[in-house]
């Protein structure tokens, strides 16, 4: 199950916080919907020894999705391939999911109902997700967990943001 589950990882050595993922996502999913991606920047150290890490975050399509557990209306469900989706007919707009999600993924549109990354569920498998397609540095990779693990190995990636393993933490320093 877990190897065919789909998900993202973000290569922290590559993300430059250019926001191309966010904009491509909005262009694809509708200019008037809220932005499904948030890009943050973390600074550490003191001048002149300074480091900055950039992370682009959206729904990580968690194996154990806290939002699902928190939803009183059972509006959030997991597709067989692991993609977490929301049924807006059932959504009450109570926002409990946003409290539960460690990634701040749930967003609310003008109808006050929850919406979030759908893993571009209207794109066929051969096509990259909009964010992945747009990322100029290859920082965002989407696919099955076994595919992601393969890329991580190939690239010798050191730090990622993902829900590939573990339940709560989202930034990993790989061995």
């Amino acid at each position, binding site marked *: 199950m877990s190897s065919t589950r789909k998900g993202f990882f973000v290569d922290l050595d590559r993300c430059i916080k250019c926001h191309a993922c966010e904009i*491509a996502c909005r262009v694809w999913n509708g200019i008037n919907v809220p932005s499904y991606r948030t890009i943050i920047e973390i600074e550490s150290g003191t*001048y002149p020894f300074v480091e900055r890490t950039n992370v682009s975050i959206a729904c990580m399509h968690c194996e154990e999705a806290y939002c699902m557990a928190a939803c009183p209306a059972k509006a959030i469900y997991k597709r067989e391939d692991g993609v977490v989706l929301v049924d807006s007919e059932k959504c009450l707009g109570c926002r409990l999911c946003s409290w539960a999600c460690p990634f701040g993924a749930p967003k609310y549109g003008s109808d006050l109902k929850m919406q979030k990354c759908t893993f571009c569920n209207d794109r066929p498998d051969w096509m990259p997700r909009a964010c992945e397609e747009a990322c100029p540095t290859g920082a965002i990779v989407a696919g099955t967990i076994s595919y992601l693990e393969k890329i991580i190995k190939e690239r010798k990636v050191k730090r990622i943001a993902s829900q590939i393993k573990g339940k709560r933490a989202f930034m990993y320093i790989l061995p």
Partner: protein
Amino acid sequence: MEMPEKLSGAKVAKSICGVCPFRCSIEAYVKDGKLIYTRGNPENPNTKGKRCVKGFASIWFAYDPDRLKYPLMRIGERGEGKFKRISWDEAFTIIAEKLKEIKEKYGPEAVVSLDHVQGCTWHYKNFLYLLYGTPNIYDHTAACDGTFTTACISIFGSFWGIEDYANSKYILIWGKEPFEAPRIVGFLQGLMEAKDKGAKLVVVNPRLSKTAEKADEWIPIKPGTDGAMALAMAKTIIDEELYDRDFIEKYCYGFDEFRRHLEEKGYTPEWAEGITGVSASTIRRIAREFATTKPAVSSAYHGFACYTNAFDAMRAVLLLNVLTGNVDKPGSFLLVGSPGGLEPPLKPPFRVPEDKIAKINKPSLRETLGFVLAPDFPTALLPKVILEGKPYPVRALILSQVNPIMSDANTKLWIEAFKALDFIVAIDIYLSETAMYCDIVLPDACYFERYDILQGFNHAPMVLYSEPAIPPPGEAKPIYEIVRGIAEKMGYGEYFNWKSEEDWMRNMIEGLPFTLEDLKQKGFWIGEPQYKKYESGLKTPTGKIEIYSVLVEVAGYNPLPEYKPPAVMPDEKYPFRLISARMPFQSNLVTQNIPMLADIEGENWAEINSKDAEKYGIKTGDYIIIESPLDSITVKAKVTEGIVPGVVALVHGFGFGHWGMGKVAKGRGAHINRLIDTHIDPVSGTIAYNECKVRVRKA
């Protein structure tokens, strides 16, 4: 392959991105008459299916309700923004009459044209130059690549340069931002590819920029002193005999003079340490690493060049490539034909027989004011020329896709100059701040709405093709139709009697090894790359790569680069230097009316070192007042460890603070150019935006 429903049955138009002047080949998908999706041209090596964030967001141009839709005539005072709608026929008639009148009264040179090299510009450049007869046709060089281009000309003759990051093993970047201000998305990808392959990336920058963040080494340097570090590196490379002797003997001119010059001036790493704040041991180490790792590239562009001493600093940075033989080989500093489509292989869209070409009445302002080496007239000097009428009267401006009131230093002076003119025409997609001061404003087509053929920015020759994906809004017209309209009213209709756009496009590619049909199918053409072009001689006076520049000597300047301090230095009253930085998601003055981008950052901010901030009690998110001897602005502060103390960096300072353009752009953030006095680099004419001292306090 099965297409998603959204795209199935969509028509795909090949296009050239017009958000910045760097020309990425793209594809635009149109369904039911609506532009719904864009991507980089997957076959083009500079895009490989990708676009930058600004490119993606620019799909909004197709929807923006604030776009200009009709020709406008000013009815209020200049700058008041009161216009009435007129017909194209009225607009063409007024422009033709005014241009004739000014030519009779003052001569054709009294009309100056400014543009931004984003396409279709040949039509009106040729019209104004060949038929109307003004030599004063300038683009945005002085606000951009002027220093780089002039330095390239002085060293390599006619050539320009592009860095082959992807194949390089040691990349030294001086105040240039492939990650923060991406030009062609392929250059950015090339840099990432080099890092993947284990290349070392060293960034010299007063700020920990997005490129510096990803560097193996960030070298914080006092702004405006890069030339000193580069010269000390050159001295180290020569003293320790790490230079490419064979390459220098065969292909370069003036090495011995340079060696003596560095010796006489005492440009040692210890000397540079006192100026730059970078330790002598670091300078020596970087010099050794750079000279002994092959291939390597030393790369700078505009950010680094915002000082009055920039021309010599740029030469010093580029000469590091020359000393180590890193020129026009894979992984090094590549030589390319001059940019802007001004040189072959492309030809003009229409021809004027020799005997019909207008005689130039007086030489251009550039020549008259002695900027013999500058590729363009220093537009920063234009307000003074207009206000004083010297060396001769300038009475009208034709502006296309430019906004000098916002983009040039010294906003107040520009406004004063605009008020003094007889006639101003703006061609734009928005009612920009500059357009508000114009008499006639013509609605332009954006890049999704026009045909075009342009030369690509690439080492191998590249020609790009654009066709309209959608029609322009309202009555907006592409430039070639606007020029035809004006030309017909002035009696030059015979040169513009093309039946379809294909006619003038075929003129442009005449004699080239591909057809218009090839271009239409693929969106571009690419030729074979040619390396080591210096082997067959360069267009410098000596035919060699000139370390000692004969051209610069003839122009009356030092043929060898020397270090001079910046013209403006912080002092007790104004203790900080103000510099500009970029946001990766805004392009100059082009993209601020895009709501998606405004959602990312609603306003710009000023970065200040934590030590300085502490002294003034400034915290991230506080509003601060930045005051220069000229004016003051209020802007949000961001306290960071990633900036040299004593420096304030206004992020995207020239694209925020709009009071025109559109509803989204208006009233966000602060504009930097009102703080900056007029300073230029004397050789290249480039605007020295960072020659500005300021003080700060909490608002």
